[in-house]
């Protein structure tokens, strides 16, 4: 072999060596365990459950069941309407805090390096965070439903219920992507404050706290550019309180937003990589 050939074959070897050969069963086990422990970790984190789970539920009980239970909004009873909006609010919080806060802390305080020094498949770490966000999103929406059905007289066909739950759970994806991007560009101490700084104004402007039609005109125009607005409109459309905009547009905006956030997260990932490898 000529030196070039030897060089080539080493290059090919190092390329093919980039993955560890594992059986599909073993790989699945790793992904499952990673997700399971990520879920348990957050579930036991009072900081996480207290803010992420209790706020949307508390708001729903107060504004949807105690105060305005007999009222209607856009032809839909308030307890039903608010499942869609506080559901969106809950999904967004669970996803942002679940991904960004954990990632920023793991990156900043050395834990991610310990994991990277191990043979963990790198992707498993991120997938675990996204799956955990989706599970918490489902829990929040189911809690709102249960309260609505038992205390607010909410009734809807099973198919509609399934569609609403499915839409909101899938809605965890864009915000998990946003969380990954934030997690790469914030530090362990600044992450929670940064998340709140984005999460709370975005929720307000998207009509998740004050129903959309009561918002000032300028805010309503801003809302059109905000991902939570589009997710909440998809959810409201299912319970018959949408603004008759195109669902396809809502999905497209959310998909584009997800891609942009993943792109930003990728830049952060590579920047970290270069910092380590540079």
């Amino acid at each position, binding site marked *: 072999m000529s030196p070039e050939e030897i060089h080539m074959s080493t290059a090919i070897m*190092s390329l093919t*060596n*980039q*993955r*560890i050969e*594992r059986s599909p069963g*073993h790989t699945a*086990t*790793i992904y499952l*365990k*990673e997700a399971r*422990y990520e879920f*348990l*970790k*957050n579930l*036991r*984190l009072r900081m996480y459950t207290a803010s992420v789970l209790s706020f949307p539920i508390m708001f729903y009980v107060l504004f949807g069941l105690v105060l305005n239970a007999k009222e209607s909004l856009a032809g839909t009873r308030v307890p039903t309407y608010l499942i869609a909006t506080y559901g969106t609010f809950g999904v967004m919080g669970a996803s942002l805090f679940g991904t960004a806060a954990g990632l920023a*802390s793991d990156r*900043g*305080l*050395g*834990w991610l*390096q*310990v994991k*990277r*020094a*191990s*043979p*963990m*498949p790198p992707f498993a770490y991120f997938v675990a965070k996204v799956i955990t966000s989706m599970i918490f999103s489902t829990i929040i929406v189911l809690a709102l439903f249960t309260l609505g059905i038992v205390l607010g007289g909410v009734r809807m066909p099973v198919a509609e219920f399934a569609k609403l739950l499915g839409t909101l759970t899938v809605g965890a994806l864009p915000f998990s992507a946003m969380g990954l991007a934030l997690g790469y560009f914030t530090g*362990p101490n600044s992450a929670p404050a940064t998340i709140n700084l984005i999460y709370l104004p975005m929720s307000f402007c998207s009509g998740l706290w004050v129903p959309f039609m009561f918002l000032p005109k300028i805010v309503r125009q801003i809302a059109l550019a905000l991902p939570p607005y589009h997710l909440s409109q998809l959810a409201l459309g299912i319970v018959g309180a949408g603004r008759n905009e195109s669902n396809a547009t809502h999905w497209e905006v959310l998909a584009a937003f997800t891609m942009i956030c993943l792109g930003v997260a990728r830049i952060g990932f590579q920047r970290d990589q270069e910092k*380590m*490898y*540079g």
Partner: protein
Amino acid sequence: MIATLEQPRRTAMVSPQHVVASLEGVNKNYGDVRALRGVDFAVRAGEVVALLGPNGAGKTTAVKLLLGLLQPTAGKARVFGGDPTNPENRMLTGAMLQVGRVPETLRVREHIDLFSSYYENPMPLAEVLAAAGLEKLTDRKFGDLSGGQRQRVLFALAICGNPDLLFLDEPTVGLDVEARRTLWDEIRRMVDRGKTVLLTTHYLQEADALADRVAVINQGEIIAQGTPAEIKAKTAGKRIRCITSLSLDFVRQIPGVTGVKEDREAIEIHGVEAEPIVRELLARDARLAGLEVTSAGLEEAFLALTQDNGQNGNQFN
């Protein structure tokens, strides 16, 4: 002057065993900071090697290069003959790094279960728990553990995959004497099972207790290598204290002097042998007073080795 040892008799110590991890002419810069300078260093199969040096000497950088978490600015890091970033190598290595925060709400057993799952042939949980002395803490959450217990969990994560090569970065930092000795016993048990170990430490005593071979590193350079006995023989000199009008610079250039520092009204001199130095001092300064000669302790010997030619004086303790 800095003591430079001849190459240790490695071949006699560990017969023709092969190198499993090495740094070859490695430089590593962080911006303008030169963390490692021309480091040549090898770990052979079955050996326990200690990288000994003060904080900021470049020990952690060396370990991270060998773990593929950093890339050298120049030179080559190799593990099992290949690139340390090769994921296959990670199956054969375990690492204990210094971590700011470990997920605190997971239990000891859960942390080990997850890390074990990454490996092809992990050790059984009971064995890991026994080897790391965690049997009674299995169901404890990480956040409820003491400093020593936390170090033992990190140690357990390093060994749970049953790796051939272990990297332990300051495994006993911040531990009290008892916890340190417990962890030493655990490391020795791993060595008895035939593991190769590279550990970093800033305690000569720790290197002495565990290592077959010690490499002393300071300011990014390896300044001495040898068996713990060789390092001690080379460094365990005498400490001379006296009140003199001689300048520090003058004393420093007396043959055999390895370090000089001011100590209140007196000066403290470290040297290989006391007699020639004392003879010279007395010859040069007839009014010299308060002369004391003592044997340097291990830590002082190490200090003499790593002192930057006396220029920075006594900068670490």
